[in-house]
């Protein structure tokens, strides 16, 4: 998830939480305030009525013969009742205020009710004054709906503002990511110009990435220099020996046994030379010393390779089955490296094949629309436990005959990863081996 989106979501969420909290507590507070007001009013009224009763007697109010009195206004919002009591529940003068439901003409309404007992003419009376609560509930509902609409409006508006603002704020970060990290394929292409930003963190990040890139670049150049020097230091003595052996072999009257030894030494030297060259090649590819600026037609390339080593196929009487469902031109590739890659795989397929065996080459688009080249043979195969090691440079394993698989497959692996090609291998002992190369989409 993008940081920007996270910011926006977080902001929207936190605002919603705050507004919801206010929404939850506000009605309670409003109710409390309103209740306080009502209660004060009720107490004031009861004081006034008791005062009236004290001054003018109860008869002023009670006209009925049954000595009780009741009155309510037209909307039943307020009522007053005085009823004689037979016994005393609470102490005289105690004021109780609580919510209660009262019935008026078949209508039950919720009121805030004050009740107080008093003594008049040796008769106990109970005074009740009520005030309706429906107005408060309405107020509460109004507040609630107001809060909900405000919430929605605030969240929507703030999401829009946040998106815009965070985009503006994050722009330097995306610049750093795109320009310096994503679009850079090779250390020598590093762009170390500073990204213009007033945000401290981005400045810091930019500066550190620049420093890091410079270090990587330096390390790359040092490695390149090292490879060049190692190349010179290793290959020069090999060169001397090779040429000396050649001159020795041309000596007149060379005894047969000495000639044999020279030939053996040449072979040993050649092995050394090949190993050194293979390691240098791998290092050079990993050091990105090769360009990827060619368009390579994989079918044509495979044909070139086959033309080059086709005689070996014939020599071993191997049947070659070639099938191309799709063609593929690999842009931004290095043709000579890809040639080496295909050559090494096909050469292995020949080398480890049985006489009268078969090699199948199949080029096709796979289910994910990636060009895939599959080269399988009917050769000696590789043990399952050795499969994972065949591309390893250092975890070498040896075939049973004691010879060496060499560095051909590590080279294949290195060229493949240099080009973003995924190489996999499947093999069954005595049945054959299958190499699958999945090319990147263009």
């Amino acid at each position, binding site marked *: 998830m993008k940081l920007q989106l996270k910011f926006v979501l977080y902001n929207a969420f936190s605002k919603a939480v705050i507004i919801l909290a206010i929404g939850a507590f506000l009605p309670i507070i409003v109710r409390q305030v309103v209740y306080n007001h009502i209660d004060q009013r009720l107490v004031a009224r009861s004081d006034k009525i008791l005062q009236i009763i004290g001054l003018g007697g109860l008869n002023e109010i009670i006209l009925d013969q049954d000595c009780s009195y009741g009155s309510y206004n037209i909307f039943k919002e307020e009522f007053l009742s005085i009823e004689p009591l037979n016994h005393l529940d609470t102490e005289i003068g105690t004021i109780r205020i609580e919510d209660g439901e009262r019935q008026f003409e078949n209508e039950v309404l919720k009121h805030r009710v004050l009740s107080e007992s008093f003594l008049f003419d040796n008769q106990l009376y109970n005074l009740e004054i009520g005030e309706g609560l429906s107005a408060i509930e309405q107020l509460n509902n109004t507040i609630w709906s107001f809060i909900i609409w405000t919430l929605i409006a605030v969240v929507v508006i703030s999401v829009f503002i946040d998106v815009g603002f965070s985009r503006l704020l994050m722009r330097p970060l995306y610049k750093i990511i795109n320009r310096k990290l994503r679009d850079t394929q090779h250390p020598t292409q590093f762009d170390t110009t500073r990204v213009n930003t007033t945000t401290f963190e981005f400045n810091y990040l930019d500066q550190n990435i620049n420093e890091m890139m410079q270090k990587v670049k330096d390390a790359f150049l040092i490695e390149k220099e090292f490879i060049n020097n190692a190349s010179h230091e290793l290959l020069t003595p090999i060169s001397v020996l090779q040429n000396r052996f*050649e001159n020795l*072999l041309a000596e007149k009257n060379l005894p047969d046994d000495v000639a044999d030894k020279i030939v053996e030494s040449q*072979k040993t030297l050649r092995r050394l030379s090949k190993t050194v060259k293979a390691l240098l090649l791998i290092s050079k590819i990993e050091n990105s010393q090769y360009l990827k600026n060619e368009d390579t037609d994989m079918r044509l390339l495979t044909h070139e390779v086959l033309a080059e080593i086709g005689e070996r196929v014939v020599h071993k009487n191997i049947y070659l089955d070639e099938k191309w469902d799709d063609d593929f031109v690999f842009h931004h590739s290095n043709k000579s490296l890809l040639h080496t890659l295909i050559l090494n795989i096909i050469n292995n397929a020949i080398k480890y094949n049985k006489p009268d065996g078969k090699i199948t080459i199949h080029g096709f688009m796979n289910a994910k629309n990636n060009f895939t080249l599959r080269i399988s043979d009917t050769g000696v195969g590789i043990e399952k436990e050795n499969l994972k090691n065949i591309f390893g440079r250092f975890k070498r394993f040896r075939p049973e005959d004691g010879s060496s698989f060499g560095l051909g497959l590590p080279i294949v692996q290195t060229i493949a990863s240099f080009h973003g090609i995924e190489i996999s291998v499947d093999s069954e002992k005595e049945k054959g081996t299958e190499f699958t190369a999945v090319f990147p989409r263009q």
Partner: protein
Amino acid sequence: MNVLIIEDEKSLSHEIEIFLSNEGYQCDVAFNGKSASEKIYVNNYDFILLDIGLPDMNGLDILREAKEAGSESSFIILTARSGVEDKVAGLDMGADDYLAKPFSLLELQARMQAVMRRKHGLQKNTFMIHEFEVDIQNRSITCNGKNVPLTKKEFDLLNYLILHKNRVLTRMQLTEHIWGDILEDDYESNYIDVHIKNLRKKLSAQTQVDWIETVRGIGYRVNA
């Protein structure tokens, strides 16, 4: 033909000198850039074998200097440095060929001959070997006007043996020449023997080819 060998590794320039002298070249050697420049200035060489990793200067500068001074010598760059750019730069500056170390002296001589042929195109491209006429330009071989159909590899093999006639070429040297050095250590295999067998069969259909000699345990030799 005179050759200047510019190579700071003395034992290597010594081996090259021995080989080329035996092949009839007049050799001169320079171990550093300074003396090389002086020698190029004073003498007129047909060939300059140039190691570009010299201790005192970049060999490419010698090449540039010489070309600017209008030198008509043919340059072959020899290098053990691995930079891919070196090769491109060298050829761009007008070098005639490029050999990466370690190289075979036989290969060096083959390249030198190819350069000579390219430069002096009028030189004849055909020569006789016993009763056969070899045409290098068209890569064909005929016997009394009758074409002998050879595969590309068979022709390369025969041509290489003829080029180095009277010298034993090992299977490895032949393998290296026709396959390059990309392939795995296959020189133990008998591909070369099979090629030679086929070659003999095709040629002897015309006339006797006992001049292609098998040297026991080592390789083959064309006697002429």
